[in-house]
């Protein structure tokens, strides 16, 4: 426990140091993403640390959380639903029905050429039926004021509702993925989830009717006041000045503190729930299954079901974090989702923090996110020192200065390898 406290104190010092040496604004900025990262790491830790499920599709669930924000809380697009909403919904139902029919054909018919042909027929007919309904509906939606909208629009609900919605959307996707892929061996599951994440991003980039694709959704509603509004409010300016703050800086910090408060609440709630769950009979069963699947199966535990359960739960947590992130950014930009940043970095957090340990995941989230942000300036300083003696404008100096930005990945990789080698159970080992 002492070690845990010490490590958290160390991370706190990092953030406080950033605040004092750099600026409180940037320290809080890092803290907010660190809180979100910690929640993502918690989700991954549930899947990996509790159940040994190797999910490298984190990015996909993060993105689905972001999509939920658009669908829940973006303002409705007038006429969009009437134009093609039913068509799209109908097409999606048709698609689902096709897959269900295909599964039934596969299960009901005896093995042989007839089954294969029937399956192909169902799939081909279903596909073209889907496209016939889907394409005109999409064209209708995308025709509505494409410069501004061209998408189906949101429900215009309060953005805080989007967070659980993000969890639900990610959970639903995880259920479908889990049903097909969880039976696979661990490295196959990894490759499968990696692929699914790419597909989710591809869908979000290309289906403009959904969330405008790479044209991005901007100005999404926020749960906290806008800086400009604060600066315009006489009461706020007075308050800031009585404490001797510059109103501009104060507004930025207050907004970030509001976010930090909200994110902190979610983090505390999730940590509390996961800790309770881990120490409950359910948690003991999960650990038993992780440690020895065969024995647990022999004892009558339904391993597949439990795996599906934890996979869906973990994905929901990641989805919530994804929704929070999109809320923080106030925009959804599918082009910025990169597996290195949203999948593998989260994995570094979990491994460094300590797999199987919730506190480890939280610590890893804070520490690694801080490093991820700070490695760049630190690298620049370092390169600056190294190249100080070199002639200005020399090829090597310019190259080194330009390359300092790429130190991040190298550092993350080295940290991951060092932890795996010398402290394979992480900074705060789980049980």
């Amino acid at each position, binding site marked *: 426990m002492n070690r845990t406290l010490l490590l958290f104190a160390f991370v706190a010092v990092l953030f406080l140091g950033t605040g004092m040496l750099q600026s409180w604004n940037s320290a809080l900025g890092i803290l907010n993403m660190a809180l979100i990262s910690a929640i993502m790491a918690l989700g991954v830790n549930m899947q990996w640390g509790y159940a040994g499920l190797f999910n490298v599709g984190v990015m996909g669930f993060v993105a689905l959380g972001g999509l939920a924000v658009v669908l829940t809380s973006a303002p409705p697009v007038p006429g969009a639903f009437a134009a093609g909403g039913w068509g799209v919904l109908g097409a999606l139902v048709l698609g689902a029905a096709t897959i269900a029919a295909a599964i039934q054909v596969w299960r009901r018919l005896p093995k042989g050429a007839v089954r294969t042909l029937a399956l192909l027929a169902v799939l081909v007919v279903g596909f073209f039926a889907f496209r016939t309904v889907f394409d005109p509906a999409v064209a209708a939606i995308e025709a509505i004021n494409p410069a501004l909208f061209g998408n189906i629009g949101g429900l215009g609900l309060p953005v805080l509702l989007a967070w659980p919605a993000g969890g639900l959307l990610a959970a639903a996707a995880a259920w479908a993925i889990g049903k097909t892929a969880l039976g696979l061996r661990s490295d196959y599951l990894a490759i499968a989830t990696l692929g699914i994440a790419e597909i989710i991003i591809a869908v979000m980039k290309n289906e403009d009717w959904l969330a405008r694709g790479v044209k991005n959704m901007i100005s999404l509603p926020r749960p906290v006041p806008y800086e400009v509004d604060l600066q315009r409010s006489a009461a706020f300016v007075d308050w800031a000045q009585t404490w001797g703050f510059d109103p501009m800086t104060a507004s930025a910090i207050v907004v970030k503190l509001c976010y930090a408060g909200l994110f902190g609440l979610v983090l505390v709630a999730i940590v509390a729930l996961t800790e309770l769950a881990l120490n409950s009979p359910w948690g003991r069963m999960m650990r038993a299954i992780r440690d020895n699947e065969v024995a647990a199966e022999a004892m009558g535990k339904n391993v597949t079901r439990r795996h599906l359960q934890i996979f869906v739960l973990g994905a929901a947590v990641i989805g919530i974090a994804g929704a929070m992130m999109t809320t923080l950014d106030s925009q959804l930009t599918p082009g910025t989702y990169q597996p*290195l940043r949203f999948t593998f970095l989260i994995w570094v957090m979990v491994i460094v923090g300590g797999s199987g340990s919730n506190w480890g995941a939280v610590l890893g989230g804070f520490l690694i996110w801080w490093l991820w942000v700070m490695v760049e300036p630190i690298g620049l300083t370092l390169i600056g020192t190294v190249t100080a003696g070199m002639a200005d404008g020399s090829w090597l100096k310019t190259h080194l200065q330009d390359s300092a930005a790429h130190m991040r990945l190298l550092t993350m990789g*080295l940290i991951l*390898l060092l932890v795996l080698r010398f402290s394979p159970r992480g900074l705060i080992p789980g049980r």
Partner: protein
Amino acid sequence: MDILNALVAFLNFVFVPGLAYGAQLALGALGVTLIYGILRFSNFAHGDTMAFGTMVTILVTWALQSAGIGAGPLPTALIALPFGIAATAALVLGTDRAVYRFYRKQKAAPTILVIVSLGVMFVMNGIVRFIIGVEEISFADGERFLVTAGEFRAMTGLQEGLAIRTTQAITVVTAIVVMVALFWFLNRTRTGKSMRAFSDNEDLALLSGINPERVVAVTWILAAALATTAGVLYGLDKSFKAFTFFQLLLPIFAAAIVGGLGSPIGAIAGGFVVAFSEVTVTYAWKKVLTYLVPADWAPDGLVQLMSTDYKFAVSFAILILVLLFMPTGLFKGKSV
């Protein structure tokens, strides 16, 4: 005549690109499958190994170009390729010594090795970005086309042209040479056979006096050669960008798994299956169909099953189907 035009359009837009892409995937998948067969883990760093090898090749190409050395009508990168392979082999052997060997001695679980390879992936990606940056680099020189569409039309009098880029021809020829050499090595040489024996039954290989460290080292060298060749061919054909090779990881893994992980012949078959599926599903068939059906039947739409951006989805769908219905792949792979 119209059937001929349809055939030429098909060759030009589907078959030739698919063949070149398939050859690149097959070479990549061969590397993945060899590592899996001998070291028994899925190497997520393979894409970035490709990127590293390609980067070294590009640097050497530049040096050769500035020294005025070229390969005539062929791209200079072909002369630089052996240097890229040597540097990559040194890198992966060093990585094995510094990183993987520790876990091998411990007999660590495959999943741990996969996570370790993620760390290696980060480091390699960082090195590549550090050295060559993230800009798009085109390094193909020499003749651009073997046959241009215009030449083909003039030659045959057909409406459709068939263009074959030099890089496509080189890709296919190189891939064939590399594959033949690899199979000769695996099936005819003592070292190659010892690798197959090790992959088949590690304990018995040890009992027969096969030196595991030597087998592992040879495997890494082969993987480096295959990765660099695949990366350079892909880079010549398309272009080089530090992170495109990471994105190639998915179709490469799909190819290796579809063929059966651990099976070299499967990796080749898988590469072409994945490549041709991607190309056929994302190709707009309007042109070909217009030639084949009577004029008033001509399709209005593009007759494209899926937009090009969904090619991942295609590799992935094949992957899932094979995993669900044929878990060991088309050619029986290992299921460690």
